[in-house]
């Protein structure tokens, strides 16, 4: 039996409106013809067209894509391997590995940013998009490990044992049996890394050198100067990309058959 009154339902829908209305208004006003952003003056795609001609924005998109791609590949590989180790082996240092993976999620981003920029300074490392990509790997490995680890809990190990018994080498078994089975989790983890990477502002603002401006840094500096319809347009595009990724990641993470309850 389901419980609760219509009041709970109505109230919940109000909260959903609160969650989505500000974003929706931002998106709608990216299509507003008026330059004075609070007054509606009709539909236009002008702001999107001017984005396409804005070299600063295009450059920042390029940087964000490079950083996102590098961070996604590296963090997904490392995180998946760590999840495999945690999911199936009892080894010395397992507890420490878990705690080590929790830390980057727990420690405030601003502290991680400050620590990394100090570290790069000590090494006299030139700040560039590569220091940004490195920082992004550091804070996203944990998310991949968590998502892939969740996928492993329903994993039937006898399938791997069968492959080994039938004469497959361990490497073959990994590529042909293990990886296809955990692939939805790996892809979901990769999508999340890319999403976090192209959205990150705080840590990136510490470790990005001159010429390494990513899209969120570009948006932030535009906001500091003043609100323009162009900011709404670029924000809308970023939202669109991330929402698509999250929805796909979410689908991939859902267990195939969910147990029903009364």
């Amino acid at each position, binding site marked *: 039996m389901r419980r609760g009154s219509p009041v709970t339902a109505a109230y*919940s829908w109000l909260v959903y409106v609160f969650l989505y209305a500000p974003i929706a208004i931002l998106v709608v006003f990216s299509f507003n013809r008026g330059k004075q952003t609070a007054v509606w003056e009709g539909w236009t795609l002008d702001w999107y067209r001017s984005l396409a001609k804005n070299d600063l924005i295009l450059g920042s998109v390029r940087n964000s894509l490079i950083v996102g791609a590098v961070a996604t590949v590296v963090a997904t590989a490392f995180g998946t*391997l760590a999840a495999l180790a945690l999911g199936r082996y*009892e080894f010395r240092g397992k507890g420490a590995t878990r705690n080590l993976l929790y830390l980057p999620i727990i420690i405030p981003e601003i502290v991680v940013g400050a620590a990394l920029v100090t570290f790069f300074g000590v090494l006299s490392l030139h700040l560039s998009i590569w220091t940004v990509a490195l920082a992004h790997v550091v804070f996203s490995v944990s998310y991949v490990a968590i998502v892939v680890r969740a996928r492993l809990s329903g994993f039937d190990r006898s399938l791997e044992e069968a492959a080994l018994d039938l004469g497959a080498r361990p490497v073959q078994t990994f590529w042909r049996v293990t990886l296809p089975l955990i692939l939805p989790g790996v892809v979901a983890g990769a999508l999340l890394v890319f999403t976090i990477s192209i959205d990150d502002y705080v840590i990136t603002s510490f470790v990005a050198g001159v010429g390494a401006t990513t899209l969120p840094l570009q948006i932030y500096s535009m906001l500091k100067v003043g609100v323009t319809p162009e900011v*709404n347009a670029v924000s809308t595009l970023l939202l669109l990309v991330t929402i698509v990724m999250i929805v796909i990641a979410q689908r991939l993470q859902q267990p195939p058959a969910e147990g029903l309850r009364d």
Partner: protein
Amino acid sequence: MKGGRAGRGDRAAYPLVLPTWATLGVFFLLPLAILFVVSLGQRATYGGLKPIEDLGLYISSGKFLANYARAFHPIYLQIFWRSIWMAVVTTVVCLAISYPVAYYIAVTAPLKRRNLLLGLVVVPFWTSFLIRTYAWMFLLRTEGLINHFLLATGWISQPLELLYNNFAVLIGLIYGELPFMILPLFASLEKLDLSLLEASEDLGAGAVATFFRVTVPLTMPGIVAGIILVFVPSLGQFIVSDLLGGAKTILAGNLIQNQFAVARNKPFGAAVAFGLTAAVLALLFFYALYTKRKGQDVLL
């Protein structure tokens, strides 16, 4: 085959975790250690670290703690106090708003709609904090939509100063952190055995008594997890206070950022960063004790 698993397992795990250990060891733990050392140092005139001439004297004179001592100056205490009370208000308001929503998704809503309702919370959970904060900047500005609406309807004759104050920062924090409260509450409420609520009511408890004496205690793990997930990030906030609070609502996060970017006093910034980290770790230590006692599921 199965008998050999434990023995075979031990060593095979190390190559798998090595890349993660190396990455997080070199680019996470080591930087944190260096930041800690810097927090014990002194700022040089042009922003770098001042070389220490006599280490023995430096330690015995207590100078290595100077940055931490400085953090107790009333100017900074005021900032930390503001960070704490704003994080507390954000957490309490988020909990109050979220519980009925999580209850609705987990218990009231038709099952076939549950995934959609949950997905609608997950999307803002992962989308850009920056853009979601900007959305409020857009609404609250002097020339923003809210002022425009109030002026047009004749409720006010002068635009209100809605932005750059504590109120705006609180709205931004609550809005930003809300999904982080709904999700853990949902996870707990989803596991709630509804027959216990029926039993309570059959035994004569009213709806209110059942809620506070059965539902709330049984979903306490979700409540505690939600409190942690909202309170900890609020404490280290930087974007919301910078964009919606301006120079008037400086939080601990802004203070740290300012020392690194503007004031060029890295040792002091590092000390504040470590104070913040210590506070967060202390909270999580108690949380770990709590979950251990409750035997809650772990993520990794």
